[in-house]
């Protein structure tokens, strides 16, 4: 490891507010399957000024069984400025997400966002490839939507444990898009098999950039692929967070930048990082 250096904070100009904490109203909240819930809220324009890959921090409700204290980070799964709605997909794992399942239509819920730095898609790119695993798909969904809107071809490989815990893929089924779902259950979700599909896409259709979220093993494979084929790639990472605003340096992770080890905040410089800078 070389001498430590640091992230360069891009300090906001005084007076330019860009993050908002707002009481939103639950519009829809229902299980997707046994493991995931889908929450849609009425959100103000301020928060809906978001981009694919950004996230929000949710103040989960408190009840007699669950008393989450800190906000919980959740990828923005969908946003619709016209309808004034924001959607997330949450995997039910602990205090906060269990409390989310109890929200009823009409309940208030405080949401802070938009947060972090999203995916970069250069205007000149025509074909992008997404590889999502599990709830990682949530982060990639707006990317698929916006890329398709911009006339790009989007190929998505979605890997899940089983059909039973698959997420809805309708946001990925855009004109000109291809969606391939693989599951452990069916035996076609092995890393080798997916890597073969990715390399096929690169070789046969030409891929301008690769995006992934939700699986460290996929990241390792893609790092290799990006290096070998010289394709740019990005990954949305997770880290335990507190402020979500870059304040506390709570969520720093080391990255390799031009031969140095650099600490970057997942909530601020991330959650989206260059695949080749990741240390996996």
């Amino acid at each position: 490891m070389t001498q430590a250096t640091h992230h360069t904070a891009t300090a906001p100009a005084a007076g330019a507010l860009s993050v908002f904490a707002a009481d939103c109203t639950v519009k829809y909240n229902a299980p997707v399957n046994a493991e995931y819930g889908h929450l849609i809220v009425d959100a103000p324009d301020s928060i809906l000024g978001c981009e694919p890959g950004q996230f929000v921090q949710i103040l989960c409700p408190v009840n007699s069984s669950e008393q989450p204290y800190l906000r919980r980070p959740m990828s923005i799964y969908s946003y619709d400025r016209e309808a004034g709605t924001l959607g997330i997909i949450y995997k039910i794992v602990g205090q906060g997400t269990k409390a989310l399942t109890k929200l009823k239509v009409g309940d208030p819920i405080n949401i802070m966002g938009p947060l972090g730095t999203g995916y970069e898609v250069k205007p000149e790119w025509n074909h992008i490839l997404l590889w999502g695993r599990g709830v990682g798909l949530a982060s990639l969904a707006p990317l698929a939507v916006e890329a398709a809107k911009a006339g790009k071809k989007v190929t998505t490989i979605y890997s899940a444990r089983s059909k039973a815990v698959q997420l809805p893929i309708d946001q990925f089924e855009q004109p000109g898009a291809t969606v391939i779902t693989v599951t452990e259950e069916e035996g076609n979700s092995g890393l080798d098999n997916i890597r073969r599909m990715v390399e096929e896409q690169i070789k046969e259709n030409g891929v301008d950039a690769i995006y992934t979220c939700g699986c460290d093993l996929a990241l390792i494979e893609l790092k290799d692929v990006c290096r070998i084929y010289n394709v740019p790639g990005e990954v949305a990472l997770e880290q335990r967070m507190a402020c979500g605003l870059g304040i506390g340096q709570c969520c720093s992770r080391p990255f390799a930048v031009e031969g140095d080890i650099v600490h970057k905040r997942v909530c601020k410089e991330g959650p989206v990082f260059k695949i080749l800078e990741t240390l996996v």
Partner: protein
Amino acid sequence: MSNLSTKIGSVQLANPIMPASGTFSEDLAQVFDLNRLGALVAKTITREIRNGNPTPRICEVRGSMMNAIGIPSKGVDYFRTNSLPFYAQFTPPLVASISAPSVDEFARICEEITMPGVTAIEVNISCPNIEEDGKAFAMRPSTALAVMKKLRSATDLPLWAKLTPNTGEPAEVAQACEEGGANAVVTANTLLAMAVDIRTRKPKLGNVMGGLSGPSLKPINLRMTYQCAKAVNIPVIGCGGIATLEDVLEYLMVGASAVQVGTSTFVNPTVMVDLVDQLDAYMRENHINDLSEIIGSVRDKEAADAVFFQEAAE
């Protein structure tokens, strides 16, 4: 509008609400207008460039959190060229926060940070003193006195000593700081704590132990604020678990001249501004013209109700 202003020695604050070091940064300017604060308190910096502790650096405990960030620091130069000009855009006084592992190193950074634009220096003496047995300077009166004396001779700026609740002698430590030349004490930093993930059996923090902050800390640091305010003649700044107007009032009543808000900002990013507004409304509703009518007003000498009862019956 009531008079919310307060003085910490020579430093005049428009209101008693300011951030706690390490829970505030340039980034918060994205969320609200920093001019609403009584002061701006920067993250602690050290002379050496440091990365901080291994992750996970934070975890949640019931109703509160723990951190072991470890003071990542980009050094004094970065502060001068980046943070200082940024904070110069705002009117509230800027308080720099510094730390060091030895008395000499502490004095050196204290001298270096004494620069135009810095109104006061908060000295985070809650950090380990590697020259002694690794215990924080602020855990014992002797080490607190030694470092404060050295710091006093290193700067003319007001010095605020940030104390630790990890001591059995908070009043004595505060007195040592006063004797050493501190212009105020801040009560206090986080309390050493621990949590274990029972599934992996690993500590929830990469650093094994870390500092407890948030609502759980409030009754403890409030007590320490009370003890220190009784013990010293310099102003005391309360800190620990403040989330509501009631918390602010409790700290002021036990003798704090101002308060710092830390972890609550993570939960409600605009909490400091909300508190300023609520304090103003409270004072108007209760016909309190000046903050000094609240500061130190706890009725601790009066017999508790039931004792009164009992005595009346004798």
